């Protein structure tokens, strides 16, 4: 059964229909890439799937359960991990504390008023950081991290909840090409090993075609093509609107 199913999602901002009827499904262990030019509506799709935006129309189902319009914090507890196009982390905490906070939140231990938080889940947090290659930076303040490291931190925080689904909006933006491939290879490994479904957007076509199992192409709010990387790469419509080469 698909981990995530979206049907006929629509979102309007004033007169602008940012997403105009998108349906998709992600399978366990699958790496699904959502690509499209800037302004195509990718982030809006992510925000509807992740609960940040409520769709005007359409439905979202997670493991068969209708979660349309459900708040992000509830989705988080249902196993949806997220990274954002513009990174969002806790600048006043160290890298390790960021992950510890995510662990505390996911384990529903945030409402504890007495024991010292930085002694909780230390090993787990360090393990997660090691997985994303951030172990050496654990004690640095998150506020001073380089952009690429912030992306890694976000991934570690998303993984803290043992997600069944990862929603990653431009997870490698701001990274060097070599780093990008490495990070996405890591994500791919996680998807395979743990059966996590991954939906991601990416501008680097090498990464997309190298790591994705399947690709969806979005243009002006509509899906115009989908299929294996090879099939999509060959699709003339895709080449026209997205890759910029005339058919």
């Amino acid at each position, binding site marked *: 059964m698909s981990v995530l199913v979206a049907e006929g999602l629509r979102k309007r901002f004033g007169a602008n229909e940012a997403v105009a009827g998108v349906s998709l499904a992600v399978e366990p262990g699958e790496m699904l890439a959502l690509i499209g030019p800037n302004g195509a509506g990718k982030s809006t799709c992510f925000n509807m799937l*992740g*609960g*940040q935006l409520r769709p005007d129309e359409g439905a979202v189902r997670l493991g068969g359960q209708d979660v349309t319009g459900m*708040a*992000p*914090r*509830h989705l*988080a*507890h249902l196993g949806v991990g*997220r990274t*954002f196009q513009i990174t*969002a*982390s*806790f*600048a*006043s*905490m*160290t890298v390790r*504390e960021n992950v*510890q*906070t*995510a662990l*505390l*939140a*996911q384990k*529903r*231990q*945030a*409402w*504890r*008023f*007495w*024991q*010292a*938080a*930085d002694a*909780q889940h230390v090993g787990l947090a360090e393990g997660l950081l090691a997985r994303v290659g951030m172990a050496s930076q654990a004690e640095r*303040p998150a*506020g001073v991290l380089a952009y690429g490291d912030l992306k890694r931190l*976000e991934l570690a*925080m*998303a993984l*803290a*909840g043992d997600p069944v689904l990862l929603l990653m909006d431009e997870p490698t933006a701001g990274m060097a090409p070599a780093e990008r491939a490495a990070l996405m290879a890591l994500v791919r490994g996680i998807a395979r090993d743990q059966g996590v479904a991954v939906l991601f957007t990416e501008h680097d076509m090498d990464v997309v075609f190298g790591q994705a199992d399947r690709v969806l192409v979005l243009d002006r709010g509509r899906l115009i093509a989908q299929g294996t990387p090879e099939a999509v790469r060959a699709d003339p419509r895709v080449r026209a609107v997205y890759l910029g080469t005339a058919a």
Partner: protein
Amino acid sequence: MDLIFLQLLTGLAGASTLFLVAAGLTVIFGVTRVVNFSHGSLYMLGAFIAWSLLSRLPREPDYFVLGVLGAAVATAVIGAVLEVVLLRRIYRAPELLQLLATFGVVLVVQDVALWVWGPVDLSLPRPRWLRGAVEIAGLRFPFYDLVLIVVGPAVLGGLLLLFHRTRWGLLVRAATQDRDMVAALGVDQRVLFTSVFALGAGLAGLGGALALPQGSANLNMDLSVIAEAFVVVVVGGMGSLGGAFLAALLIGVLQAFGIALVPKITLVLVFLVMAAVLVVRPHGLLGKPQAMARGEVEALAPIRPAGPALQVLGLVALLAAILAPFVAGPYLLSVLTEAAVAVLFAASLHVMMGPGGMASFGHAAWFGVGAYAAAFAAKGLGAGMAVGLLLAPFAAGALALLVGAFVVRMSGVYLAMLTLAFAQIAWAVAFQWVEVTGGDNGVLGVWPDGWAADKPTMYWLALLLCVGGALVLRRALFAPFGFALRATRDSALRAEAIGLDAHRLRLAAFVLAGAGAGLSGAVFAYAKGSVFPTYMAIPHSVDALVTVLLGGVQTMAGPVVGAVTFTVLQSWLLMGDFWRIKLGLLIIALVLAFPTGIAGAASAVWDRWRGRAA
């Protein structure tokens, strides 16, 4: 019908006056983001300067106009000096710090004005034309009020032209939207800010000068207008001139009709309006959500638990505090008792302001509720001190839960102003519900039980409850709750995405802050033996803000250092003359020297020293 028309005109005149006061404030805020507490002082200076000019000029209308404009220009110059000498140096600091600096200016101006113009209210003899009335629907309406009705919209029109038809105005509006872009355009931001501040100050001076013929220039003008000016600005939407005008109209007209229908509403009317508007429109009538303000990013410096050295220092200080009664005289002991109370009062505000990211302008409300709860336990229930001390945090916390539901949805200055509105409503209830609260005469005889009646015991009790309470709060801030709370402040988006309920966490912080302040209020009530509405009045809320900012928002030791420093300073200065100018200058000096607060500066020095040693 005619009467209604006349009341409407009266309301319009009132609205014009309000708008003139608020216009400068909103202009200054829009561009520089400075919450200028000294705006009322500039207004007062405008009135005094106008008096000095006009009482020397011939009494013809053209000279009147000249004198009023002269006062406005003089106030603008004062504003420019203020900006260059003081505010310019702290634009990089967290924005609330400027509020603190301008509060210092308020104190200084009060003593300077007393010095220059003397204590007696100065009224301008009105020439015949200023006294005149026009007959409207068979009733007399002051000619000067008609003038004001015209001046308000005229000033609005002039400002709109200035902002929309000149290059300077274009730059100012650009700076309002994106200050970095203006810098990128190669415009000297400093000149822009100085000129905007001067314009705002000039408008305040104009307002004061125009108010002069209606009454007198007096030393209470500053504080009597500042709260209402803020209300108008916030109701209108901060930075929005049109909004301020609409808000002034709304309030002016409601006031004119309101006091005819419910005469006793005078104390709270404007705050009721503000609370109602903000609950429905969290950014005022025409305001937009604020972009993240300058300084907030710096405010997110990491918070570290105390290192071993600091812990030792803290223990030594605590030990000294515990042993104090063996050496301190009764007066010093009562100052120390107040300092202990101030520690919890400030620590509780710090919970919401620091890790919670919610500054409050009305924190005294919870202090007052706690104090009245204690008074009620003592006098109404005839119960012992334990009951009062237990009741207080619950009463304050419960009320904070109710109010917080509205407040925590908001952010920034709007949030702060909504807390102010609720605090003023609470204050007015205490002030006016004479049968229960004793009105402004307060509740007397709230003395501690016999066993705690002597000064040292009461002091130890205050120390136990207040410093203990502050330590409990501190513990919660380093517990998962505190991390989760800071998470919601640092990034609400991320906090929600990892499964945190930002709204409930903020609400919990608000309730915790309220309960802590309530307990401190109850201890204060027993230590002083009496409870008054002044406990929840604006100046007391300002005290809390000053304390936290002085100590440093972003350190856990900040509120403690601030509370002790401020209490001791204030009680010491109050014993001498001209304490306002001394305290004001001291606050300004501290702000300039330690923009991150005393504890913040100390920890920076400590880090550097250790860095060198290592």
